[in-house]
């Protein structure tokens, strides 16, 4: 049996094809889940009904026919009833780190889209950065996945995360309960990103937050004097990394704890991801959440 394939940070840089990466990630991931309880979730058996003209012969349960000599067709639970929206943060702050946070987040979004497609779930894509754009509405047809990959490949990080009116309008169109996956570093102007989470919860969305962070942000292993420039606003601050490291880490961890606390309050599944770690954990979390629905 092949070992579960993980994706390394270097791979994100070397592979430009989002779809290829997503497939590689998901297939590898699923391969590693041999005998896992997640198999067949998408073909959940419900009951038998007598064969009717026009039914697909492939759906005939031949075992029942052998025992009873009657043609019965298997009925399954609705396997496309999950509407999943992927919110990808395309603000300029995502364009940071080694590996790059945006590449990591885009890959994660592509992988999730592929996985959803495999499970016949409808998936949509919303890109939010300087301004929010609903790149693709939630659908489940096979061509939709290709469009999803195309949109992700074309996305570029830019702008500043704000509480954009358009984003609120997009969220307001969610009439069905579903699953929303927010992939972001949660760095925003004020509490705009947390306002998004509140709106999603208000729209009866089950939310998973993948808090994507780079090792530079989590560890801050810089030394010497730097002129720190904000990727979003361009503001500059002189900083001595050595003397300020402890203060930075304290402030950063406080932020992360606050985000986690807010998510816990909103009953949102919060997951912090470092860009130097594989995507397996993220996919596992998604599948657990999917199973729960």
């Amino acid at each position, binding site marked *: 049996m092949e070992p579960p394939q993980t994706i390394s940070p270097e791979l994100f840089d070397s592979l430009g094809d989002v779809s290829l990466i997503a497939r590689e990630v998901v297939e590898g991931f699923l391969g590693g889940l041999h005998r896992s309880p997640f198999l067949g979730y998408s073909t959940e058996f419900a009951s038998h009904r007598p064969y009717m003209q026009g039914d697909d012969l492939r759906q005939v349960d031949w075992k029942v026919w052998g025992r009873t000599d009657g043609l019965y067709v298997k009925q399954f639970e609705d396997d496309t009833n999950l509407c999943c929206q992927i919110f990808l943060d395309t603000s300029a702050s995502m364009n940071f780190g080694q590996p790059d946070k945006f590449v990591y987040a885009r890959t994660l979004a592509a992988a999730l889209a592929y996985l959803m497609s495999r499970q016949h779930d409808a998936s949509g894509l919303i890109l939010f950065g300087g301004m929010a754009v609903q790149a693709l509405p939630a659908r489940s047809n096979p061509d939709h996945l290709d469009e999803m990959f195309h949109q992700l490949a074309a996305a570029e990080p830019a702008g500043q995360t704000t509480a954009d009116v358009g984003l609120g309008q997009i969220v307001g169109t969610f009439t069905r309960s579903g699953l929303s996956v927010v992939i972001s570093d949660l760095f925003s102007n004020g509490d705009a990103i947390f306002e998004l989470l509140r709106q999603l919860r208000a729209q009866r969305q089950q939310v998973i937050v993948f808090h994507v962070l780079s090792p530079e942000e989590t560890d801050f292993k810089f030394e010497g004097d730097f002129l720190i420039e904000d990727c979003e606003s361009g503001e500059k*601050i002189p900083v001595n990394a050595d003397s300020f490291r402890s203060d930075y880490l304290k402030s950063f961890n406080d932020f992360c704890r606050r985000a986690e606390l807010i998510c816990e309050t909103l009953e949102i599944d919060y997951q912090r991801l470092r860009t130097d770690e594989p995507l397996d954990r993220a996919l596992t979390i998604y599948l657990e959440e999917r199973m729960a629905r």
Partner: protein
Amino acid sequence: MPGLLFSNAALLAGLGALAFPVLIHLLLKQKRKPLHFSTIQFFQTRDEKTSQRRELRNLILLSMRLLLLALLVLAFARPYLPASPGMIRELQPRQIVLVLDRSASMQAGNHWAKAKKFLDQAVSGLSAADRVALIDSGASAEIIAPPGAPDTLKPILQKLEPGFGTSDLAAGLKTAVRLLSHSNAGGTLQIEIISDLQKSACARLAEASVPKGIELTICPVAESETPNLALTELAWDHGQHAVVLRANNYSLQMANGVKMSLLVDGIPSVIPSLSLAAETSTQLSLKLPGLDPGWHSVETHIAAHDSFALDDVRYESIFIPKPLRVLCVEQRASLRAFEEETFFVASALAPESTNEGPYVVEKTAPEDAASKLAKAGNYVLVVLPGLRQIPPDLAPGLTKFVTKGGGVIFFLGEKLNPNRYNEDFHGLLPALPGHVEGDEEQPENFWHVRDYERDGLIFAAFKEPDSGDVTLPEFRRRFTLTVMDGSRVEASFNDCVPLIVSKNLGRGRVVLVNSSADTSWTDWPKRKTFLPWLYGMAANATQRTLSPDAEDATPFVAGFPADVPLGAEAGKLALQVREPSNREVSAMADAQGKISLSLEEPGFYSIHDTAGHELRRVAVNLAAAESDLQSFLPAEITIPRTNDPPRAGVIAGVFGDDRRELWHLLLLAALGLVFFEPLLANRCYA
């Protein structure tokens, strides 16, 4: 730091190393790397003050390191502070010489009180280890107190009073420098001049010089302006029988109606008041009343009521000699005096209108002359007209008289028998008469005086220009003369025939005039030049001048010791001197008849023998220069400073072991920085 010196000054070049930390600091500062970061929200939480404090700490750290480096460099350069005068004063005992002006001007205003205050302050500020000397900066500086402990000077200062003399600060300064130069004791050297800085006292200060190793302090005591009206001169005018007085107004304001008084032997005379414009002087001649022979005291006073009273009085002593007795031999005594042959001579020597002349004339017949000379014995001069008859005892009598010091004046005449003269007076006459010549009917042949001894006593009165023309008198008749050996021709006619011939005989003197005593042969007795000429003749014959001796006329100044001449007859005499304060002092005249007097204070000094006979009265006055109270400011005084090393002790004091080394202090400070620097550095980079 002023005065900071370095033993190894070349090492100061190491201070250039200070540039390296600064350079490194600047280079590092420029290398602040730009860093794009996802967000700066975590950096904005830092307190701006923290950044400023860190910058400040960095600057302090840089300064500390620079200071550390500088301290090390300076320490290796071995800085030291040379011993300043103040430091030397602290470290070593002081040798101080006080140069005190005790001149009369110090009695003006409150000069002396200020001077005493300066003295007390100077002495009270000294420690027991210090040494102090006191010098009186008089005309010749006097050491009042040799170097000694300050306590020994205090009783001297209590008794110290200002003097009446002048001051020469240069002399005092030289003495002080000499005193310090000869001192073997160590310590700092200091001279303090305490004076009113009167201009006359400072006149020679530029001639003095003080080595730089001696600290010089000037303590002025004079006020900015001290008005003064002074009498600066009082002199006896023998010819006018008067005293000449000079008054000076040194004030910037006019003196109006200042009362004056004249006292002769204590008896006041009324004289007009004095008015004198600012900064001017005037001269007054005050006629004196008739005075008896002997010494007299003359004082003049002014009621100036100014700040300096000492110069409001002036003294002068006058000696009126006893008249000299002259014996005129008159061979034609007549009831009408003008018919006498010696009328002009006697009238000239002793005018009847006054009895104050220097001569008393007695007339006698030729036959009585010898006996009078023998009996009286106090004649100084005998005048002989041309005698027709010569008494037999006259020639020996005259010879004896002259030999003992008397003087004889021979006139010639028509009735004279030359052979008899040549025979009887052969030993007396300086020239022998021959025969009479001259024609009164031929004025063009009259003779005049041409050559004469201008420097002799006979013509002394005619030395000055316009004092009389002795060539005007006409001589109608005369004798031919044969001048004797040893005789001196004092004057000659225009044809070189002698007019006046003199010779010494014994202690006396004989003068022959080749003319008549009356107007029979010459008109000279009718001319103005006759009187002074005759006085000159008498002086020559008697060898006594009527004007005061130049040595006797020397003014005596208070504060200056002087040798007072009393005459040879006073040699080795035991004398008494009565000072102005009426104190009697015993003294002894030297072999030349001089007596040394200190003449400390102004006034009259009376010198008399043990029998009470007054030999001399001396008037002593303030030096006129003391009355001018204008003074210098200390800043206006320039005293040359020399580089002469004062002495070894001072050199050691300035350049030797007394210098303060600072390197160990610098190293100590650097060591402290070495310990402190890591603390601050860790705090900066924590």
